[in-house]
């Protein structure tokens, strides 16, 4: 380990850790990738948190979509996913997702995952939004936690070296190839790792919003790292606002209220006690896609039919108490902690920033547009198009985690160079934080408010431009580290600023309403299927929107 040594800001030693595959991120996708990669060579997994505890997989409640029954078909899963994604998805990636998701859940079951089963000893499935068949597998409402526990178990015997609580702040490059990464631990010590292949599995970034379901690690690190390394990102404007986030207490606002609540039969009502979804999607009602339900709830609130805490009601009191207790135990427990017994009274909910559908452009093997750099899970784009179906993210982590791990593992061993000047540049960057004057938390707060107000569910070019100006201003402020333990925090806030800027620029590039992205200032004559636009894309040099490319 290298010791970061202010005031000189030099690494004490010239040694590096070496490995074949470096995985950055310890959520579902990262751990799955490491398990696979470790079959091919020495694998290191860098985790910003204690591995297994960070990321959003462990918080994922509802489920995992997989076609397991004769009555269901991969074709239907494909069509549901494409339709739900407003046909912005990359069809090749969706095909792989639906075809391989059943195999990947079997891996988990073999490794010990305890999913709920039917009395016929089959994995139980429940209905989720936007799907023509109940294909969401679950472990109560702690599905992601169950998966994470299983994956951690498996990784423990895979030979992967896990390095805990190190934040990656830079990807090394030799000419156009990624050759490793520089990390910083919570004491401010630097750690450099040289790798044949590097996998970004850093998850999402909706912490850039004031109201978000994400864990503290959802700060968009991978988007920023990938972008700075020169990779292409697509569809960054596509941010999913989950329809049901908690609204009280204030500090816990945004906390996810799982879609499983509606899957189990939960009903949405406004303050007039109207089941308002009948106005927006009478056919699918509460189980419409997330973009539709979020907009419906937001509209009810904006038009003055919200509750005291600024939400709408989500009610399960008509369900049998035993069903709530066995299928939604985490929800029951969380709301009880906040003084609401969901068996007897309705929850209050409002939309909350949840998932970024966009991300690094990948091939079917998770290869980004930069050699030797892979991406999988939420940090990658293209799988979910303009709106992700509930239950598809957990499947995504496993399918593309495995693929990226395997492809990176199979990649050739090579001579990897790390240039001294890159390290020096990073040391200088960190040293600058000791001279700064604005605390990272101050900047993060301002950013989150600006993003929620100017780049939320409903968007206009004017508001987006204004938000971009705020981001530019915040990015120009000199970040201040109070001590070595705050250096990582400063880097993280820079990642948030970069991610926010990618989201806003993407939103300006896409001059249409599509899926989760709604431009109120654009009138359009087409629907999703006949849209003239494909992906928006951005990289260090250029940006644009694809036209005339049809799925």
């Amino acid at each position, binding site marked *: 380990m290298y010791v970061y040594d202010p005031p000189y800001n030099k690494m004490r030693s010239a040694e590096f850790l070496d490995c074949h595959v470096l995985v950055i991120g310890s959520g579902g996708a990262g751990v799955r990738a490491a398990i696979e990669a470790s079959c091919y060579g020495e694998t290191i997994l860098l985790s910003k948190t*204690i591995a297994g505890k960070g990321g959003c997989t462990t918080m994922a409640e509802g489920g995992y979509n997989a076609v397991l029954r004769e009555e269901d078909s991969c074709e239907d899963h494909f069509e549901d996913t494409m339709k739900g994604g407003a046909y912005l998805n990359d069809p090749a990636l969706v095909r792989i997702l639906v075809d391989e998701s059943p195999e990947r859940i079997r891996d988990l079951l073999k490794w010990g995952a*305890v999913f*709920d089963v039917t009395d016929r000893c089959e994995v139980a499935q429940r209905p989720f939004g936007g799907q023509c068949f109940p294909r969401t597998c679950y472990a109560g409402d*702690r599905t992601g936690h169950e998966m994470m526990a299983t994956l951690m178990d498996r990784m423990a*015997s895979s030979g992967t070296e896990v390095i805990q609580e190190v934040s990656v702040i830079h990807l090394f490059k030799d000419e156009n190839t990624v050759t490793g990464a520089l990390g910083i631990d919570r004491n401010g010590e630097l750690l450099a790792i040289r790798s044949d292949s590097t996998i970004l599995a850093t998850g999402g970034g909706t912490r850039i919003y004031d109201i978000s379901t994400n*864990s503290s690690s959802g700060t968009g690190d991978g988007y920023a790292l990938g972008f700075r390394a020169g990779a292409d990102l697509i569809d960054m404007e596509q941010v999913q606002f989950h329809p049901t986030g908690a609204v009280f*207490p204030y*500090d816990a606002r945004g906390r*996810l209220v799982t879609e499983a609540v509606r899957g189990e039969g939960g009903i949405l009502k406004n303050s007039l006690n109207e089941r308002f979804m009948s106005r927006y999607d009478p056919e699918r009602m509460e189980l419409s896609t997330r973009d539709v339900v979020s907009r419906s709830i937001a509209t009810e609130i904006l038009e003055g039919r919200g509750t005291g805490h600024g939400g709408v009601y989500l009610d399960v009191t008509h369900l049998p108490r035993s069903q709530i207790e066995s299928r939604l135990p985490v929800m029951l427990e969380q709301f009880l902690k906040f003084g609401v017994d969901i068996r007897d009274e309705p929850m209050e909910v409002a939309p909350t920033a949840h998932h970024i559908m966009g991300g690094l452009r990948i091939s079917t093997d998770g290869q980004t547009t930069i050699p030797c750099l892979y991406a999988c899970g939420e940090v990658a784009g293209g799988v979910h198009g303009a709106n992700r179906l509930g239950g598809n993210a957990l499947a995504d982590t496993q399918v593309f985690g495995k693929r990226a791990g395997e492809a990176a593992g199979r990649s050739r061993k090579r001579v990897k160079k790390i240039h001294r000047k890159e390290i020096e540049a990073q040391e200088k960057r960190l040293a600058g934080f000791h001279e700064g004057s604005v605390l990272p*938390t101050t900047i993060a707060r301002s950013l989150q408010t600006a993003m929620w107000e100017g780049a939320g569910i409903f968007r206009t070019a004017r508001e987006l431009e204004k938000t971009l100006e705020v981001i530019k201003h915040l990015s120009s402020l000199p970040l201040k580290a109070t001590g070595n333990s705050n250096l990582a925090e400063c880097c993280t806030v820079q990642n948030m600023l970069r991610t926010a800027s990618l989201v806003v620029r993407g939103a300006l590039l896409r001059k249409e309403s599509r899926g989760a992205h709604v431009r109120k200032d654009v009138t359009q004559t087409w629907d999703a299927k006949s849209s003239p636009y494909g992906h928006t894309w951005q990289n260090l040099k250029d940006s644009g929107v694809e036209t005339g490319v049809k799925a």
Partner: protein
Amino acid sequence: MKEMSVRVFRFDPSEDKAPHYQTYHVQVNEGARVLHLLHAIHEEHDPTLSYRYCCGSGQCGSCAVRVNGEPVLACMEEARDGITIEPLELPVQKDLMVDLEPYLASISSLAPREEFVMPPQDVVDTIKPLRSCIECLACVSACPALKVIAFAGPTAMREDLRLALDPRDTEDRVTEAVKAGLFTCTSCQACWKVCPKDIQIPGKAIEKLRALANKKGLTLPRHQEVEKLVKETGRSVVRTETSFLEQVPEVIEPVGPVKATVGFFVGCMYNLRLPKTALDAMEVLKRNGIRVIIPKEQVCCGSPLIRTGQVDYLDTLKRRNIDAFVFRKIDTVLTMCAGCGSTLKNDYTTPFRVMDINELLTKFGIEPPARLSLKATYHDPCHLLRGQGIRDLPRELITQVVDLVEMPSICCGSGGGVRSGIPEEAAALAEKRRDEIEKTGADIVISSCPFCEFHIMEHTDRPVKNITTLLLEGYREKDRKKMEKPV
């Protein structure tokens, strides 16, 4: 917004010689959690404060800390004015951050078979509650056993049972658990009570593992002797003196009007080791209008067998005990042994109500005793405090006689078969009790459980007395004063 004052443990091993506490006055929102309080300190007062958190919704187990000594998840526990926040009782890295990794790494992993087997629904139903563990290590922090002896700890045992039940695992987890200290658990249930996911580790994991160990012939020899004794004599301890049951009539009528009639379940310890204490209790009941019926055919409640995983003979004991009271049409059974009480309440399905003597006496009220000029401390029996949720009632009774000085509620080491099975551990835990007793400066130690009383007696020079004995002494003092001042 509201202002709160909070005391926080601070320690930076790279700079500080010793930990210290710092008090902050912070503004937080209505309904804020402890985590938000920490955020407020970090953002508004002191960016150097280190603490760990991640999901903020009770699902990842990163943020466990101790609030006023009790392990909680910072993200779920409501912030209150005047609290003290400390790290878990694990090696401190900095401030509220502790080193979780060595423990996490020690939890067993499933070793899968080549061919895939799907666990059947009943196995899934048993395993599921064990899987809700978020590995926050609150239980490890609270466990008294692993502070004095090599023990893998509560949550590792939980996972061992899960693996033992899971048909997909290929290893012998029961033997592994025995080697990892399965028999060191005292059944104190501290782990369960601090578990944010309410996993009943002693009852649902450790006792189940001990039952599986029993099937493999791995029960400790001393525990096997106890089972033999119960089978032969109906009692878990040897008769060395005249028993309580031999000294009392079947019905004890109270002095004065009858407030209530109860059946009395004496338990092996008060019957055979501390009969004098049980006789004291009878005197107190007599004086307070309680009519007591004492079926002589009652036997051991089975607790020593349940706690050690020897459950074959249990149904016989249960039937004999239940029949003894049902036959006499008794609707309320009184226990004064915390262990028996907890067992009858939690391990039996009884057609009658079970009440601990502290509940009974406070329910019907007692004649005020005289005050004794003594300072006492109270040892909470695990099977009363956590097994039956009785905390305040004994204190209400004690403070009617003497001044009470509190000490932390920690297991004395006598439960779970540890006193007989691993006496050195039981002694080490009792020595820690001795230290706490010393710190209080109390003249006497009061408790409400024969196991605790008998065990602590060997580890303190202060007299150890049952609550009812204390009350009786209060009455005797009252009578003596009355004699001195004839009306």
